[in-house]
């Protein structure tokens, strides 16, 4: 089992994509009892690679190494003060037993469209560092996913670091709609952030990947008057493409997303709500 990033990356390269990196195991082991093929895969264990542990704050960034757990961020008071989205997202992931094992890096490369950690990271403009035998490459998280479970990570590459810019946020909101508060997969998830870099809106469980919502962001930048939640629907339909599945329906998801946006933004934005004097 590897003890350094360079060793892990060279093993990934040698295995030609057959070895699946495993960190906290909270996604991968959930399948082991029922899917024998999942047990029989070849895994590259990262639990001995200490270089991938922990997070640090620099003057202008929060740097999370890939094995940083959700619980670590939940317990970091500076994260609560500066990047509340991260803490709120982490607290909705399963429950404490999952948060202590599950990692931010694992949440990203598991590539679930319902990933709550990814949702918060995307609204905070995170950058990923992918390390391969030939060196390290940077990818913006909002450009990382190409389709359902498809991403810009080559098979020889390991996600090593996640970098989040430190900005003065005037607004951060995280909403997870699920069947119950804990231990639930998101039906509709929304992260909204506002800083001097502008509005960011990201949604999960609304498309084949967690996704930024450029049309909605533009509506907010332009201060387009919104009188009721349905005014958001055209932009929602341009930005995301929800489906009917076992957890919910596409129509429900669109309408809930519109209502969540309205509910979160109306107290903050004079141009959103019945008081809007657009006419």
């Amino acid at each position, binding site marked *: 089992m590897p003890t350094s990033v360079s060793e892990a990356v060279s093993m990934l390269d040698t295995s030609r994509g057959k070895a699946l990196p495993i960190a906290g*195991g909270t996604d991968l*082991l959930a399948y082991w009892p029922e899917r024998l093929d999942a047990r029989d895969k070849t895994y590259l264990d990262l639990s001995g690679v200490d270089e991938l542990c922990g997070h640090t704050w620099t003057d202008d960034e929060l740097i999370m190494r890939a094995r940083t757990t959700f619980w670590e961020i939940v317990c970091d008071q500076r994260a609560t003060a500066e990047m509340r989205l991260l803490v709120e997202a982490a607290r909705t992931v399963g429950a*404490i037993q*999952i948060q202590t094992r599950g990692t931010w890096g694992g949440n990203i490369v598991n590539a679930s469209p319902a990933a709550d950690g990814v949702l918060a990271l995307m609204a905070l403009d995170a950058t990923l560092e992918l390390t391969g035998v030939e060196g390290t490459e940077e990818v913006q998280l909002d450009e990382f996913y190409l389709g359902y479970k498809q991403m810009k990570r080559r098979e020889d590459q390991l996600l090593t670091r996640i970098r989040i810019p430190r900005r003065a946020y005037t607004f951060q909101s995280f909403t997870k709609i699920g069947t119950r*508060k804990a*231990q639930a997969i998101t039906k509709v998830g929304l992260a909204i952030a506002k800083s001097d870099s502008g509005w960011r809106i990201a949604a999960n469980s609304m498309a084949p990947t967690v996704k930024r919502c450029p049309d909605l962001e533009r509506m907010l930048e332009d201060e387009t008057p919104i009188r009721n939640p349905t005014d958001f629907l055209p932009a929602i339909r341009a930005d995301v493409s929800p489906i009917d599945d076992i957890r919910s329906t596409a129509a429900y998801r669109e309408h809930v997303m519109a209502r969540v946006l309205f509910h979160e933004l109306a107290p903050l934005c004079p141009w959103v709500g019945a008081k809007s004097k657009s006419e």
Partner: protein
Amino acid sequence: MTMPADQTQIEVPFTLNGSEIVVRVEPSERLLDTLRYHLAMTGTKEGCGEGECGACTVNMNGLPVNSCLVPTYQARGAEIETIESVQHGSVHPLHSTGATQCGACTPGVVMSAMWLLKNRDKLDTHTVRELMAGNLCRCTGYDGIVNGVESALGLGSDE
């Protein structure tokens, strides 16, 4: 060295309830199965087997984890504490508030409750209910569990 599951067994040293032990396991073995079937520590229960119910909760290096989601080899060098480490009698507050009926969830509930008792500072940011949310119980409706934990913490009105 990557690890296909058909490979030979691996040795995993760890500390279990204060004693240093070494187990030989398949690379794909779960900590839950090592505890129950290799070590006959059957206090830890399997509920869902997929990280939802918390029945298999143990402490790993001082933090609660679902032992069904931990490959045993990842426990190497770790300190593992199971329900067998809990003193008889220390669960009295749970008995007295109706926190247990069928008992399937109880070992996990007790492990989470004991962790909370040792980590009271987490109540500055979390509620008892949030910290116990990883343990599903289909009998009690949770109020008995929450009341029992609050009473053990000295927060409840009933003791």
